[in-house]
């Protein structure tokens, strides 16, 4: 299973990963629209999808599926924005912005890892 692994002890909360993520998927630098969330605690809390698949069973339209690499993918054309997946996510990593049509989540693309100055995030195959 391909997953974005976090190492909070290395994180310096520079939020570069959030910028990289939101810029890629929403074309704006906005932490509220990042699939990974970093708090300013010490050490920072790093919240991102662990691909546990709990949301997949809750989706009424089968918009959530698991890729061959074990990554949970959202098919926006099937999604009707009910947010049931957001409610069942055990790690609060299915993300949403109120007013948007669909939730969003980490698909382990790895773009954020390239922006991280301390190697606090890494794509791994578990």
């Amino acid at each position, binding site marked *: 299973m391909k997953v974005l692994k976090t190492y909070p002890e290395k994180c310096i909360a520079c939020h570069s990963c959030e910028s990289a993520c939101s810029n890629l998927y929403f074309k704006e630098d906005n932490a509220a629209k990042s699939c990974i969330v970093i708090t300013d605690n010490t050490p920072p809390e790093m919240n991102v999808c662990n691909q546990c698949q709990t949301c997949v*069973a*809750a*989706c*009424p*339209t*089968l918009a959530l599926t698991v890729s061959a690499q074990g990554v949970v993918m959202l098919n926006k054309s099937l999604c*009707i*924005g*009910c*947010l*049931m997946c*957001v*409610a*069942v996510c055990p790690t609060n990593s299915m993300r*949403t912005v*109120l*007013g948007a*049509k*669909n939730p969003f989540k980490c698909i382990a693309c790895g773009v954020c890892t390239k922006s991280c100055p301390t190697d606090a995030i890494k794509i791994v195959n578990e």
Partner: protein
Amino acid sequence: MNRKLLAEFKYDLAPIVRGYNRRTLYVNVGTKEIKSKPVSDMMIDKFVGGKGFDLYLMWHGVKDDTKWNSPENEICISFGPLCGNTSYPGSGKSIVTTISPLTGIPVDCNVGGHFGPYAKFSGWDAIELQGKSDEEVIVYIDGDTGMVQIFTAPDTEINSHIFAEELIKEFADSPDKHQFVSVVSTGTAADHVNITCLNFSFWDKRRKVARLKQAGRGGTGTVFRDKGIKAMVVKYSGLKVDTNNPVDLPTLQQTGLKLHKEIEAGDATQCRMHEVGTAHLMEVMNDYDLLPIRNFKYGQMPEAIGLHSREFTALFTQGMADGCWYGCSLSCCKAVDNFKPRTGPYKGMPVCVDGPEYETAAGCGSNIGIFDPKDVVEINFYCDTYGVDTISFGTSTAFVMECYENGILNKERTGGLELTWGNADAALELLHQMASGKGFGVTVGKGVRAMKALFATEYGADPNFLQDIGMEAKGLEYSQYMSKESLAQQGGYTLALKGPQHDEAWLIFMDMVNNHIPTFKDKAEALHYFPMFRTWFGLQGLCKLPWNDIEPANNAETDEPAKVPEHVQNYVDIYKAITGKPMDKVMLIRQSERVYNFQKVFCMRMGKGRRIDDVPPYRAVGPVTEEEYLSRVERYDGHLKDKIGVDPSGKSTAEKMKILREYREDQYQQLIDAVYSRKGWTPEGVPTVEHLKEIGMDLPEVLEVVNRYLK
């Protein structure tokens, strides 16, 4: 299928504005006229939508003397401004109304499935079906292109579990788009009997079958078939979170998400709707002596352990997203997969059975003495696919079983059927007879009121005894709760406008178990507030269950826990978020009051709906037989002593029963006095002109009917 196009109507597709299309669809299957009718500001202000629109359209479609099978009788299906939103659980309901073959007055049913939201998003706030076709037809709404068509229906199989699926496959654009089609159908029993329903489908993408939800009460399926309609089909492919075009999507989403999280956190320890649906009630009702057993004689029996919810949990496929509309995280519409019936035309064929829900498990289980859950599932399956209402089937079958027990019926009169308690084979045979139109099943399918008259005239049975044990009021069979020990629930049942269904008021726990409404005034207030609050769901296209089958963790600490104040506020918030109109908890009740009183006057216009019609059979009030009295002798003797002040010692059971009956019947009448007064009605049950003016339901046509009865 080789279908001939009989009529066609093209319309412009336009986005919904804040929950409304502002037009309704009229289809006359007799003349083949199809047209669009505008929705006026008055309709929205006074009737809101949903059941309100249905009743308004029907009122102007029928005449004072319209019968269920008159061509001008209508089947109206409406959805409400909140219907179809995918954010708040329980938002996909259609409301069906028609003049019922059982009662002769409007019946209203609140039903899930995808038809309602898809028909609404196809461009219609309500659908009005009128006329009678001289050939079998299908009415098709294509919400993707803006087209309504009437086709011939040479289909030979109309039983819903097959027919709905066939039509979905026929009308879907491709095999991966079955979820965009929904069907309304009934079954072969609707050609022969009155206790029928309509099935509203939704395509279950995981199971790859058409699931069926029922507009169950009052014989809607019989009217549908009498009109020559085999099915209605809708196709709509464009659903998104904002299709209902709410004015404030973020608030709608936030409120829905809050409830999703509450359900995720609380359902497993509260009602377990996600695991077993409403069947979770089985042991709760049995524990409190409220589960109907043997035609409502008893509320508790050791055998009822056989219908414990764990038995249904084991039969239901777990872990599925079982919402009857998208976005319902309560997910209560459970299903038994790969069930193989042991009788009938589908014997041995694996089928998917929707339910059993509580009403079915009680009505087609304990109330007829059946305690094997698989027998209940089989009756459930055949009821659904034949288009029979499980509640009326259960109560009607319980009635004939008690008649059989008392010798009013025998094998000769039932065509050889041994209608003994718990005889599942005989109960199933009754169903198969309803579907084929042959045998004693057809008599049972006429309903309890018709059977009471028949058994008295044909078999010389005592009409008073039949009245006491025949669990119907206004012609509709009781749903499945014991009201004997709850005076408030006796009123809740008998005052329900369409007949004794629990969807207006369910006060048993509040009244009997928790004693929160001890006085007549308290009970009257509850019988005002809760029917009004629950009516609101039918105006909006909502389901009642997410209101109080899940509660916030701190609900018990609120000032009025029975009302679930936080959820009432949720409804206020989502109404405002969708429609942009002002709303608060007082205005909410007022919206309902207008439509409720309109429905009341509609019933009066059709010849029922006054005090003389709000009469319970004594079985709903107290023990009819010595056997019943003696089974709870300590309770009843205690009532004589504590409540009536009569010493039971030395009195015969018959004497004690007589005293108890006089007391309870008097209590009931006092309750009715209090409730009518609270509702703004005369002691005869007629809304006063002053009250109608006060609530804003003083339309000339309403006053004209009321004045007939006030003179």
